[in-house]
């Protein structure tokens, strides 16, 4: 692949697990190169000594390997042809189809000027009450699932993607198992929406460092559709923990001082650069990011979920509720920070108050449960709260619910009336008068 004018270097001076160094002139920061055909990127320049990060790893690279500088940063060719295709981390097709023709765009491009952003205001309906009622999603939002590896987050995410009525769905898979990759492919295929999907996939079979390119690839494609075509784009990133782990590997091999949990000190900025690509553009296009951050043993104080939580606009937790035997969206720990932009505005006026009241009552049930477990007697109120919690969990929080928000509110009011007196729910009087469902 060497071209006539390109200089070929053949003297590598240092090799580590992830990097190699050589003497070269006129090299730009962030520039791509190939080392014996393996793709690499410039990460450090000191005088004429250039250090390259080799994405596939440096196994088998000899000191006389051929190094060719490509004179450009990592880039992706963008056009309508992307739709329906599957790519690897370098943007090369992996579905056997032809290469993409289009404009070549550098990935990891500039940020949107904050004054040019529009405030997100369009509701994304998923039919799942644990999301729509309690943690309403808005276009232009960025929100992760915080989930243990054994939870069905990819299934929920696929459901959300299909119901969200997006013009394009872009899947960025990092460290995805081959089985999950095929799962997504099948679900999208069976739903007949493959022409709306673009996938960039790095499976567990690929070298981990390659993953670092996936989010930027996916978001560059997303920006093309959102900016050039004014489309509503939904980007699914799974799993961002694998991405952060890859960052840690690279930083470690570059001898950087680690901060909390062996993560690089720049983790916050690195993650923010990705998530902040979520935006509502003034011309109507939007990028919404739904990500997955897998936790280890539910620990959200670990540096990855912790930094993520400070960047994203909320988070969604899944939990198995043993009382009803279903996976629910945990109402306590889940949060959508943008929900007030649509709750009560794009939905019925009572949305916010009903949501808060239900969660408060659910919390009362949790207290009652603690009492029960500690062997104390329950009051009548406690008993009623517990009954309410079961119905609430089954009819609203479970991830298999699929109804619209007005129905969700009606269900909530009927549960209030079934289990409580109006003064126990602490809702504004005028709303109680309007919606309280009196049971004769």
């Amino acid at each position, binding site marked *: 692949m060497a071209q006539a004018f390109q200089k070929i270097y053949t003297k590598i001076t240092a090799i580590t697990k992830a990097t190699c160094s050589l003497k070269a*002139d*006129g*090299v*730009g*920061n*962030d520039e791509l190169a190939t080392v014996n055909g393996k793709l690499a990127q410039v*990460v*450090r320049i*000191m*005088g004429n000594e250039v250090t390259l990060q080799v994405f596939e790893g440096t196994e088998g690279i000899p000191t006389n390997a051929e190094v060719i500088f490509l004179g450009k*940063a990592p880039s992706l060719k963008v056009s309508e042809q992307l739709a329906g295709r599957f790519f690897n981390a370098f943007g090369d097709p992996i579905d056997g189809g032809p290469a993409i023709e289009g404009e070549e765009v*550098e990935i990891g491009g*500039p*940020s*949107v*000027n*904050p*004054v*040019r*952003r*529009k*405030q997100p205001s369009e509701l994304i309906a998923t039919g799942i009450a644990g999301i729509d009622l309690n943690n309403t999603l808005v276009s232009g939002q960025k929100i992760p699932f915080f989930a243990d590896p054994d939870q069905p987050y990819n299934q929920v995410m696929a459901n959300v993607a299909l119901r969200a009525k997006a013009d394009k769905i872009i899947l960025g898979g990092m460290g995805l198992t081959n089985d999950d990759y095929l799962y997504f492919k099948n679900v999208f295929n069976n739903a007949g929406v493959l022409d709306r999907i673009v996938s960039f996939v790095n499976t567990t079979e690929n070298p981990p460092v390659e993953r670092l390119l996936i989010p930027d690839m996916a978001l560059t494609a997303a920006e093309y559709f959102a900016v050039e075509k004014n489309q509503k784009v939904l980007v699914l990133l799974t799993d961002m923990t694998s991405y952060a782990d890859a960052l840690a590997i690279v930083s470690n091999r570059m001898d*950087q*001082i*680690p*901060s*909390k949990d062996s993560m690089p*000190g*720049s983790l*916050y*900025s690195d993650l*923010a*650069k990705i998530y*902040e*690509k979520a*935006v509502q553009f*003034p011309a109507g296009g939007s990028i919404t990011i739904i990500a997955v951050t897998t936790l280890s043993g539910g620990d959200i*104080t670990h540096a990855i979920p*912790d*930094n993520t*939580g*400070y*960047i994203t*606009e909320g*988070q969604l937790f899944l939990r198995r509720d043993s009382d009803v035997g279903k996976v629910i969206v945990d109402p306590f*720990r889940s*949060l959508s*920070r*943008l929900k007030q932009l649509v709750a009560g505005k794009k939905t019925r006026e009572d949305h916010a108050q009903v949501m808060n009241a239900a*969660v*408060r009552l659910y*919390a009362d049930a949790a207290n009652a449960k603690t*009492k029960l477990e*500690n062997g*104390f*007697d329950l*009051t009548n*109120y406690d008993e009623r709260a517990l009954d309410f919690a079961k119905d609430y969990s089954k009819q609203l929080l479970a991830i298999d619910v699929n109804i619209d928000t007005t129905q969700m509110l009606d269900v909530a009011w009927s549960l209030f009336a079934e289990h409580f007196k109006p003064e126990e729910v*602490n809702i504004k*009087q005028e709303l109680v008068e309007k919606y309280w469902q009196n049971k004769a």
Partner: protein
Amino acid sequence: MATKGKVKGIISNLVTVGVDGPVAQNEICYISLGEVKLMAEVLKVNGDNVFVQVFESTRGLKVGNEVEFTGHMLEVTLGPGMLSRNYDGLQNDLDKLTGVFLKRGEYNFPLDNEKLWDFKPLAQVGDKVEAASWLGEVEENFQPHKIMVPFVMEGTYTVKSVAAAGQYTIHDTIAVITDEDGADHEINMIQKWPVKKAILVHTDKPRPFRLLETGVRTIDTVNPIVEGGTGFIPGPFGTGKTVLQHAISKQADADIVIMAACGERANEVVEIFVEFPELEDPHTGRKLMERTIIIANTSNMPVASREASVYTAMTIAEYYHAMGLKVLLMADSTSRWAQALREMSNRMEELPGQDAFPMDLSAIIGAFYSRAGYVHLKNGATGSITFIGTVSPAGGNLKEPVTEGTKKAARCFYALEQNRADRKRYPAVNPIDSYSKYIEYPEFEEYISKIISPDWTQKVNEIKTLLQRGKEVQEQINILGDDGVPVDYHETFWKSEVVDFVILQQDAFDKIDAVCPLERQKYMLDLVIDICNHDYDFNNFLDVSDYFKRIINICKQMNYSEFHSESFKDYQNKLNELLAEKQIKK
């Protein structure tokens, strides 16, 4: 001649430059990359090698690129026309930038060159003046904006001439002053100041004592902040830091509000852009945006200018306080600023302190907070900068370096608590861990007894004790069970819940409840104290919770009603009836 240099090495945004002349620590330079020039700041000098941090992405930068030094540190340009503007961390006017995306190396002038200002002279010919003396005044968004002798001018001067009242641009000479050697200096409305240096223009800096009303009960009533005071709000994500901060900036009784969005979410800044031009300042009835300056360096904007952004904001605050104005500065979040310091310290291979932060982190934070304060200016006027920063502690653990460093520097502490947030008790400020040191100041005590009532502090302490007691009792009930404790334990607990629900909790999204003026805070506190000071007649603990839940419900409806309106009075009457049912006459 300006010093020049060439790029010798690049690691991310830390660039090594070989130079041919003198450079100063923190000097600003520009690196040429084709047509664009990238701004950078000197961080370290080692022989001919100068280490600079570039405020932008260094993609494509090559060894040998030309570097030009400017001879000055990072400066802001000060003058009328800053209010209502949206700047980035380096004071570029974001609205003047073209295109949806930010372009590298695009810098602009932060003020309006053409606008004519209505100038009124304040100084007279023959007056002795010095740095920060008021020469004249223009009206900026209905507030007096003083045109001062530039802060950089040392020594005393005599006013030779002052422009007559009339319309001038910022570039027109509005005064000529003569120094002690007889040389004349022309003064216009613009001056520059390096952001890392404090502007010191006061005669003295007494302890602050005047309450800064925020309309947030858990602050004003429970742990008040004062004009010229310092405070910080630490809290794990999702506990409502930003909502609380926005509430304060909307409602605070300040002349100028400066918001530094430092490494936080862009959509939160957009929220301010959208809301502030619409919302009214509850104190003047003008649009909030008219008194606000936004410094936006969101988390996806370059890290190095994130560090600069808080200094830019502070320097602008100091400029306005020298005019005798009440300035409120909010920074969200100072942890992101500390992280920016950490990233650079890391790249410079400095020996790290705790959690890989630089060793002098606590000193840097302390120095920054000390730039706030209530001051007497040389002409007898007073000015103040109240500074409230948020802290985003890693993992919600308050024993981390940024929180600990800030705790030493700030006098008010508003601890946001996960547990309260989980139970939707907003604002989730923990009433027992949080504190305001100002309550202990006798100056404050004297002031507050004049503007509210002499027994105010005593009442506030009463509810604090009750909250503490309520917490202890709740723990005992949890251990011993509902019927394992006397009924009056339940009564105490539920009285503390009344305080929590009626005083501490406040609905930031309800039009009426969001802002609670001081007069109303006094009314509600008196009401709650009266409820809590009575004994009640209960037979068993179930009655206690039922009864107090009804009380809380009515009091909450009062909070949602217009103060002294018909419905407010109705609820008051209902409450009185309910209280009469069970209260034991004293």
